[in-house]
């Protein structure tokens, strides 16, 4: 009864929404209002003014850098909240020696063989984010997924040694700290928080600035994703 009522209401909601969507400017036209004004400026002047050939990296790290500052703070807060929900009130950690159902020997061999290549590809994606599709967060997620795969194969105690215990809180906070640090450096250099040095001829200085931000986001994202997995998986 409830499901029939909900379905009927949703079909009734769909009709005015589909009517509204049909009246938007046609899909794929180059004259839509979203395309004319600001995007034309970014596409034309973005490459020299902001130091990256990938305009999307340009936009998220230079023109709209404050949004990315908020995004890395959000994912760091999510890690803090996950640890707060799951770790408070837990008794001592149960040490897990080996995985409860160890995968077959083929899986173990292939994962251990491929791990260095996956790490190399992830570092390539991070460092090449300004000339090809990719960027900081994509490479960081690939490194985090590699840590998860190694946890499934090697057991949690071995895999946790990938990230040393003393440095772990600093690495988890690497992304917001990098952003704030570079923002303050821009404040002393240019006079605006998160401002890039605007010397006309030295584009490579801006590219180096972008690369520091990307490495910070990449490392921070990798450690945060692995930490979320280890916190959720340690429950028995």
């Amino acid at each position: 009864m409830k499901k029939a009522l909900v379905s009927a209401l949703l079909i009734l909601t769909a009709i005015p929404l589909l009517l509204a969507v049909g009246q938007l400017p046609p899909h794929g036209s180059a004259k839509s209002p979203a395309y004319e004004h600001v995007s034309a400026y970014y596409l034309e002047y973005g490459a020299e003014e902001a130091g990256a050939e990938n305009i999307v990296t340009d936009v998220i790290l230079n023109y709209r850098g404050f949004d990315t500052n908020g995004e890395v703070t959000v994912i760091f807060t999510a890690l803090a909240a996950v640890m707060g929900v799951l770790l408070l009130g837990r008794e001592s950690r149960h040490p897990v020696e080996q995985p409860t159902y160890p995968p077959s020997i083929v899986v173990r061999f292939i994962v251990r063989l491929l791990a260095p290549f996956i790490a190399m590809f992830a570092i390539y994606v991070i460092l090449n984010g300004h000339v090809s599709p990719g960027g900081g967060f994509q490479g960081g997620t690939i490194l985090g997924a590699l840590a998860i795969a190694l946890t499934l194969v090697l057991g949690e105690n071995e895999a946790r040694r990938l990230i040393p215990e003393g440095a772990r809180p600093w690495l988890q906070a690497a992304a917001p700290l990098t952003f704030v640090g570079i923002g303050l450096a821009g404040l002393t250099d240019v006079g605006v928080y998160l401002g890039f040095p605007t010397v006309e001829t030295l584009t490579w200085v801006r590219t180096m600035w972008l690369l520091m931000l990307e490495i910070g986001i990449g490392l921070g994202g990798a450690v945060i994703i692995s930490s979320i997995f280890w916190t959720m998986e340690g429950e028995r």
Partner: protein
Amino acid sequence: MINALWNNLDYAASIVLFLIGLYAVIAKDNLIKKFMGLNIMETAIFAFIVALGVVDGGDAPIMGEGARAPFTNPIPQALILTGIVVAVSTTALALSLVIRIHKQCGTIEADELRELE
């Protein structure tokens, strides 16, 4: 109207996906199924916003040697990158809350949770 929708097929598909996700959030009882519906709603909205910036025959917005005009609009893509990160953060927190609820109350069905107190 059918002709107008045929031109804007991407937008119509994302509206349909959004309503499918909304049905799952309202009408299903299991908490994990509700969060899957929430994720489907989020990706439907991402598809809608990226589709607003697509140009016919457009290239990826990367300058270099082989780049030809016209380019796809880069601003919606930048918005959606931040949006995907926020979506994964909310999913992680929501699923850890589900684990905690199961450990504390023994069930994750919404109607049983309502009668529990």
